[in-house]
């Protein structure tokens, strides 16, 4: 059943857990996940322990997948504490066991031939861009990295950025680090100077919408990793949908966990998030459905 490309469900020991500014880093030993993982894919963790009242998995983009190493293969994620599930996760220490499913979803697609690539990360959305940067540079691509956040503590990876990319720009809205402003304030300059042929982005939906629009205005295709709330992460619950245009130009409500989380920016109907646009395949008159 499991090809090397499919996900696995494994018990995984916590190898390291630490703070990173406003965020948390978590590394688990999961060789079967690490060997399969591609940049932009994610893992889904069960939270709360075996008797937990929290039933739904928490999905996190993979920040680092190291198939070798002393633990025999590790996977690292970065997350923000937002509720009871992530608060529980933040209390895990080395030696604890977690139930891990992954790698999940479609990751970033590298260009067919080396191109200058601009990677844009908002907040901890920069986490999956680091393995992508490494893969792109290994393929011979120039990589420009743009990191942005509201404030210094909400930037992720700024300290490692210089070593991960050919050039780095950092923005904060309060000006506490780097240039004051948003990633989209510096993006046009980066795209022009680098003659970018591809944009890769991960961060809040508003940022992705703006990056996608800017990239399109400069004639550069973008790939955006979205973050939608999920219950299962594997494609059965149908909760993480968003309106996306297909190859045939038709809009469908697609699952960000299996068709995504990475989508071509110009295909996502960013302005229609949280709605079912009237021209979506199967959109009908609003009928109350009690269950299903």
């Amino acid at each position, binding site marked *: *059943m*499991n090809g090397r490309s*499919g*996900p*696995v*469900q494994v018990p995984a020991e916590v190898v390291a857990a630490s703070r990173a500014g406003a965020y948390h880093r978590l590394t688990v030993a999961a060789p079967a996940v690490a060997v399969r993982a591609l940049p932009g894919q994610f893992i889904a963790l*069960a939270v709360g322990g075996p008797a937990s*009242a*929290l*039933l*739904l*998995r928490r999905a996190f983009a993979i920040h680092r997948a190291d198939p070798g190493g002393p633990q025999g293969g590790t996977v690292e994620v970065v997350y923000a504490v937002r509720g009871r*599930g992530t608060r529980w996760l933040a209390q895990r220490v080395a030696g604890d066991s977690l*139930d891990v*499913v992954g790698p999940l979803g479609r990751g970033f697609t590298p260009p067919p031939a080396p191109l200058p690539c601009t990677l844009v990360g908002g907040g901890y959305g920069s986490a999956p861009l680091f393995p992508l940067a490494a893969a792109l540079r290994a393929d011979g691509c120039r990589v420009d990295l743009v990191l942005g956040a509201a404030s210094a503590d909400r930037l992720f990876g700024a300290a490692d950025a210089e070593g991960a990319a050919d050039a780095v720009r950092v923005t904060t809205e309060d000006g506490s680090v780097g240039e004051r402003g948003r990633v989209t304030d510096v993006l046009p300059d980066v795209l022009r100077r680098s003659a970018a042929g591809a944009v890769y982005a991960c961060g809040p939906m508003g940022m992705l919408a703006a990056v996608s629009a800017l990239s399109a205005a400069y004639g550069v295709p973008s790939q955006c990793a979205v973050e*939608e*709330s999920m*219950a*299962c992460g*594997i*494609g*059965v*619950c*149908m*909760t*993480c*949908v*968003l309106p996306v245009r297909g190859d045939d130009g038709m809009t*469908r*409500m697609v699952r960000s966990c*299996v068709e995504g989380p990475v989508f071509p920016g110009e295909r996502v109907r960013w302005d229609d*998030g*949280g*709605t*079912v646009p009237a021209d*979506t*395949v*199967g*959109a*009908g008159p609003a*009928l*109350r*459905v*009690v*269950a*299903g």
Partner: protein
Amino acid sequence: MSRVDPSQVDLATQLAGVELANPVLTASGCAAAGRELHQFFDIALLGAVVTKSVMLHPRAGRPTPRMAETASGMLNSIGLQGPGVDAFCRHDLPWLVERGARAVVSIAGHTIDEYAELARRLRAAGGVTAVEVNISCPNVEHRGEVFSCDPVAAAGVVAAVRRETAPDVPVLAKLSPDVTDIVAVARACVDAGADGLCLINTLLGMAIDTDTMRPVLAAGTGGLSGPAIRPVAVRCVYQVHAALPGVPIVGMGGVVTGVDALELMLAGACAVSVGTATFADSSAPMRILTELRQVLAERGVHRVADIVGAAHRPPGEPAVTEPKRSALPAERRVGRS
């Protein structure tokens, strides 16, 4: 009660004339059409795969947020998003049949004619082990009142589906617990030709975000599922089995462990569906099947069919009677002497 070797427990169960290898099924809407779960375990090893309710036409479903986590449960308002019955019969049903999985196909409609047409398309397609009729849908011909809340409307749907379905394919009515008298609805469905019942669908619920001070779900209300509703499921199965002891029941509602599955079977279910647990544990149905075998063995149960409805027996009567010694394999006779 003597312990039984787990591998010797006979898990075969009869569901309205269809023999299933074991009593653990997926629950509609929690397993899509089996493909995704097949990445984690062989879905053909389950008693059956109950597919997500399919409608006559493709359907986009509801806006997001569609889901809210609640204490030991979750609310959903997916709105029956799906590809429509023709795509289902082209892509999903043949895939299940090729894998050797038993396919219980759930159907949903807004008029009795839609349900009838769905049953005709499934009959033409073939390969269906049973049809589950999801009647928790608004009846557009009757002010949008939900079919499952009205015995007459429920019976109308069931009769139409029964008429259009091959005689050897059981029709199972899936009932909502959001009624005053579930036995009355169950009886109406059986009188209309239902060969079995699926109990229970989600309960209508709601959550409000105390920061935004607005409902969490875009639709406002949603269906509550998960362990939070298991006592309601046990009660419904128990009441219906007491009133209609000959009618096969597929029990569902918050089953997370093999013990949970056993509880519903003791209440009267001859098979059990695993739903929300699959969101938390991708291999939950297979794990629960393994656990059920174990918990039956620990209780000295040789045949799962023997304990269906056992909670209804008079006080003092043993739940499990020892089979005749000659019925046991030789090595066990030696071991026990």
